[in-house]
C-alpha cells in the first residue's frame, strides 16, 4: 500500500529563477518515486509562472519566471501538494525494448564479463533479467538513466572514455544502465545495441521514455537489428508498452 511521504524535502534556491525540491542525498527508488510524483502533481496543478520542471535522481528542479511567481509561493504550493501525495501516484508505462548483446555491437562485453566472473552470455542474461526504473533524463536529449543494475554488473566507468559512442549503444556504469540516444563521447561500458530510436524531434513527445517509466530489455540476435530497422523505416514497428499500476 502506498504511503504518504513521511519526511519534508529541502527547498534550495538555484539562483533567482529556479528552485530545487530535494528529497534525499542518494540514488534510491523510493526517493526518485517522490520526485516523479511531485513532478506529475505540479504538471496537473499548473502553477502560473512555472516554466518547466526537471526530475533528477533525488530532487526536482523547478524553473520559474520571477516576474510572475515567487520562490516562496512555489514552495508553499509544493508543501500543500506533498501532504496528500503518495509515491509515484498513477500508473507507469513498462516498455520492452529489443536489444542485441552480440560482441559485434558490444565492444566492452568481454571486459565486463571478466570483471564479473561470468561469460558474455551470462552478462547479457543478467542485464536483461532486470526491470529498470527511469530515474531521470539528462546528458543528451532523451538519454535515460535506468536503474538499478544487478550487483554482479556494478563497476566504475571506463578509465578511458571513448570520443565516439554509436547511437543506440546500451551501456552500464556503477548502478545505472543507459542508452546513447545519439553519437556522442562516452565513458560507460558498451554491452549492446538497440535499433529503437529513443529520441526523435518529430515525435510528440520527442523522447521515448519519461522519468518514472519502467524498461525491460529483450535480447535479440544480431540480424534482428537490421530487420527491426527496416520495419521502423516502413512504419510497421510497434514497441511493446504496458501500463502497470504502481
Amino acid at each position, binding site marked *: 500500500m502506498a504511503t504518504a511521504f513521511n519526511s519534508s524535502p529541502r527547498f534550495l*534556491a538555484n539562483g*533567482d529563477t529556479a528552485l530545487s525540491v530535494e528529497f534525499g542525498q542518494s540514488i534510491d527508488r523510493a526517493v526518485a518515486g517522490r520526485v516523479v510524483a511531485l513532478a506529475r502533481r505540479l504538471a496537473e496543478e499548473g502553477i502560473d509562472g512555472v516554466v*518547466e520542471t*526537471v526530475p533528477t535522481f533525488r530532487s526536482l528542479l523547478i*524553473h520559474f519566471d*520571477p516576474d510572475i511567481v515567487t520562490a516562496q509561493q512555489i514552495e508553499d504550493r509544493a508543501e500543500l501538494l506533498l501532504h496528500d501525495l503518495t509515491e509515484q501516484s498513477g500508473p507507469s508505462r513498462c516498455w520492452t525494448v529489443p536489444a542485441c548483446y552480440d560482441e559485434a555491437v558490444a565492444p566492452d562485453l568481454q571486459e565486463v564479463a571478466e570483471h564479473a566472473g561470468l561469460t558474455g552470455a551470462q552478462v547479457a542474461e543478467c542485464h536483461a533479467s532486470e526491470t529498470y526504473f527511469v530515474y531521470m533524463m539528462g546528458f*543528451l536529449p532523451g538519454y535515460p538513466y535506468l536503474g538499478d543494475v544487478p550487483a554482479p554488473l556494478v563497476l566504475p566507468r571506463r578509465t578511458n572514455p571513448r570520443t565516439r559512442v554509436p547511437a543506440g549503444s546500451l551501456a552500464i556504469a556503477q548502478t545505472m544502465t543507459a542508452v546513447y540516444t545519439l553519437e556522442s563521447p562516452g565513458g560507460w561500458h558498451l554491452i549492446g545495441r538497440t535499433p529503437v530510436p529513443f529520441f526523435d*524531434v518529430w515525435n510528440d513527445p520527442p*523522447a521515448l521514455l519519461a522519468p518514472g517509466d519502467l524498461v525491460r530489455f529483450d535480447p535479440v540476435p544480431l540480424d534482428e537489428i537490421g530487420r527491426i530497422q527496416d520495419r521502423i523505416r516502413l512504419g510497421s514497428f510497434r514497441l511493446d508498452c504496458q501500463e502497470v499500476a504502481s
Partner: protein
Amino acid sequence: MTPALRVDAPGLHTTVQDFGRRGFQHAGVPVSGALDPVALALTNRLVGNADEVAGLEILYQGPTFTIEADGARIAAAGARIDVFGDDTHAIPPLHSVSVRRGTQIRISVLPGTATATVAVEGGFALEPVLGSLSTYVRAGLGGLEGRVLREGDCLPLTKSAPEPRSERHMQNPALPIPETIRVLPGPQVDYFEDATFASFLSSTYLVSQASDRMGMRLEGQVLAHAKAPEIVSDGIAHGAIQVPGSGLPIILLADRQTTGGYPKIAVVISADLPALGRMAPGAKLRFECVTQEKALQERRSAQDDFKRMVRAIAPVGARLPSGSDLLTQNLVSGVVSAEEC
C-alpha cells in the same frame, strides 16, 4: 527564388539563436538560445522585428554574406557591418542598414568582444524544432540543419525586401560589460568551507580560452572541496557555477546540460546573465554575493535599463537635399521637402 543570405565565409562559429527552447529539459534537451538576449532584442527592434525573432549569434570572427534577395535590412550588435561595393563603407553597431541584391557584407566583430549578434528584418524562413529556432549543435537540433553556418549555405529569409521606412539607430549605443558579477549562494554551497566561499568572492578570475556556449571556464583561485568533488546528479539552472575536481569554477551558459554531478557553489543572478555573453577570453571578473531580494531588484532594474535603451532607438536623421538635387530641381514653384530615406 527564395530570398536568402548566401554565406561566402561562415565565420568561426555562427549559429541561428532565439531566446531558447523551453519545456523539454525534463527530456534532456538544453535550452540553448542567445548568449546575449539583450543584444538580440535590441537588434531585432532596430530592424522592426519582435524581440524574440531568431537572429545570428557570432563568436569571435564574423561571416561574410551576399544578399540574394531584392534587399534586406540588417543590424548588428558587438560588430560593425562592412558593406562592399562601389561605395564601400562601414555601418556602426546598433545601426540598421538596408542593402540591395548582390551586395556583399561582412560582419566585423569589434575588438575585445566575444559575441556579436545580427538581426535581419522578418527573420529566417526556417522550421522551428521543439518550438524554437535555437541551434543546439551537439544534438544537431534547430537553426540551419542543427549546425554552424558553412561556406555556400543559403539562409532563407521571410522577406524579399525591406519595409520602406527610415533606418534606425541607438543613440549612445552601449552594452555594458561589468567586472563584477552578482551571485546567490548555490545549492551545494555547503560543499565548501566558509573560508573557501569567502576566497571565491574576493578573487579576480580570468575568462579562459577554453570557454564555449556550454560554459565559461575561469582561471584563478582554485576552490577546495570540503566534501566529495561530486554529487548525485541534479538539475542545472542557467548561470549555475559548478566546481569540478580541478577546483576551477565553470559558469554554465546557454548550451549547459540539463543535469550534472558537480557541486554548485553559487548561481549568477538572472540580471547579470546577458553580460556574461559579452565577456571575451582574458576578461577579468569578480563575484559579489547578494540576497534574493537584491537579485529581484536588479532584475527589475535591468528591465528598466532595457526600456531606456529601446527609447534611445531613433530614426536615422532626415536626408538633406544634396548638391545635385539643388542643381536639377526647379526650386521656384515648390519647396523641396526633406524626406526620410
